[in-house]
């Protein structure tokens, strides 16, 4: 498809989400959601007229549909070409002592909110035969001190895998799995990193790979530094 698209990006206030917003909002109409707006995103919105922010708290998934649909109506978006469900949270720690609140929040934000969003966005995406892109994680195969995070991302992969078959010829579904990335997620999660952080991919590199994957027909792709150095970002033409 040529010409500007309507694109929704969740969790676009920092990290990979913000880097992706920066790439895509140069050519497309982008709606960003997040818990609260960040100064970096605010500065970007001032410069780009087709970029918009909606506060959406994914720790309360039940409220998402109502907030989002009424905003889309106000914005006069009755169709969406691409949705990138990128928002996520996580807590590092021994699972024996993980609190109920942390478990419930991880499952709500990373898994249930994305299920609710998929349910809500289906009619908008169907109109354009659009594409739904989930951002998973390489932790989906299991991580001992990141257990509920790993569980939530594994659930997201299983959900995407089933949905891809169900929505065949209606809406394309894919899930992309970034590896460790230089974002503030690890510090927020309570993890102190040393030299190893230098091996992590930058959010810009991951956003580059995400954009290219959105333009291709791969269902699931890993996106780590190794993939980037191997030239993953050079494949595909990006999102026209």
């Amino acid at each position, binding site marked *: 498809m040529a010409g500007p698209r309507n694109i929704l990006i969740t969790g676009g206030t920092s990290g990979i989400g913000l880097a992706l917003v920066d790439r895509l909002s140069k050519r497309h109409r982008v709606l960003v959601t997040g818990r609260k707006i960040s100064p970096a995103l605010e500065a970007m919105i001032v410069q780009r007229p087709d970029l918009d922010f909606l506060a959406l708290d994914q720790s309360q998934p039940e409220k998402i549909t109502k907030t989002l649909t009424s905003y889309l109506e106000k914005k006069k978006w009755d169709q969406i070409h691409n949705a990138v469900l990128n928002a996520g949270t996580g807590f590092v720690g021994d699972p024996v002592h993980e609190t109920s609140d942390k*478990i*419930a929040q991880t499952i709500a934000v990373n898994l249930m909110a994305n*299920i609710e969003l998929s349910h809500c966005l289906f009619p908008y995406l169907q109109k354009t035969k659009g594409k739904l892109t989930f951002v998973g994680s390489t932790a989906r*195969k299991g991580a001992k001190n990141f257990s509920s995070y790993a569980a939530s991302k594994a659930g997201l992969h299983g*959900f995407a895998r089933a949905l891809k078959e169900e929505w065949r010829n209606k809406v394309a579904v894919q899930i992309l799995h970034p590896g460790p990335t230089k974002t503030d997620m690890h510090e927020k999660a309570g993890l102190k990193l040393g030299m190893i952080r230098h091996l992590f991919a930058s959010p810009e590199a991951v956003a580059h790979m995400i954009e290219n994957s959105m333009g291709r027909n791969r269902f699931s792709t890993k996106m780590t530094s190794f993939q980037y150095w191997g030239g993953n970002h050079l494949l595909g033409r990006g999102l026209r």
Partner: protein
Amino acid sequence: MSARPSKRALVTGGAMGLGKALSANLAAQGWQVTIIDRDATKIVEKDQLHSIKCDLSDPVAVDRLIEELINQDPFDSVIHNAAVSATGRFETIPVQKYHQLMQLNVTTPMIISSRLAAAGRLNRGAHLVFLSSLSHFTGYPGAAVYSASKDAIAVYAKSIRKPFAKIGVTVSCVFPGPMKTQQAERHSPTNADAEKRMQPETAAALILKSVFANRKTILPGANAKAFAALGKVMPIVTDFAMRKIIYEKLDKDVY
């Protein structure tokens, strides 16, 4: 003969189907079994079977339940068997059902496990058992959120295996195929052949044998093993097959 104090087991969703078979098997081996179910009235209380009524899809009720369990003696076995499914087209099932499903199938077993462990209510040598599904290996169009929940719980079980080993608890995860239970009947296409499905009693015996042999991945029966192997080697083929065999034959939404 002076008996050793019996071992204590906790089985969720033990009123029907596989949970009932697991509880009966354990009781027959001399275990004291506490069954948690929302239909506790269906459980015939005997010397070794006790029931607590609780809706495990309600976080407030689960919190109360955990307080009650923490005040009891510790357990030697905890089996997270309770689960619901939702089959049909993803977009036509009310999203509220998915919230309940995810709470019951994922969040509740995770919370019960960590709270009991942190409170020292799992004895050294105890077994913690999660019930996933064969769909973990095959994909399951027609039950997108159910398969998401079963993938999440499988990877949770895998992730906590080493940390829980440090407190002497063995974690197992079971991946059963379709069984001859009321629940499977309800969620299958109308003309599906039920004869090939495994009896819950057979599955329960196979599962418990593997649990006590400290197996981490349990695939009860030869069909489950074969299908899981196929799913691992040829995921695209099994996804396609599941769509043809199940999704395109589903004639109703069941939730």
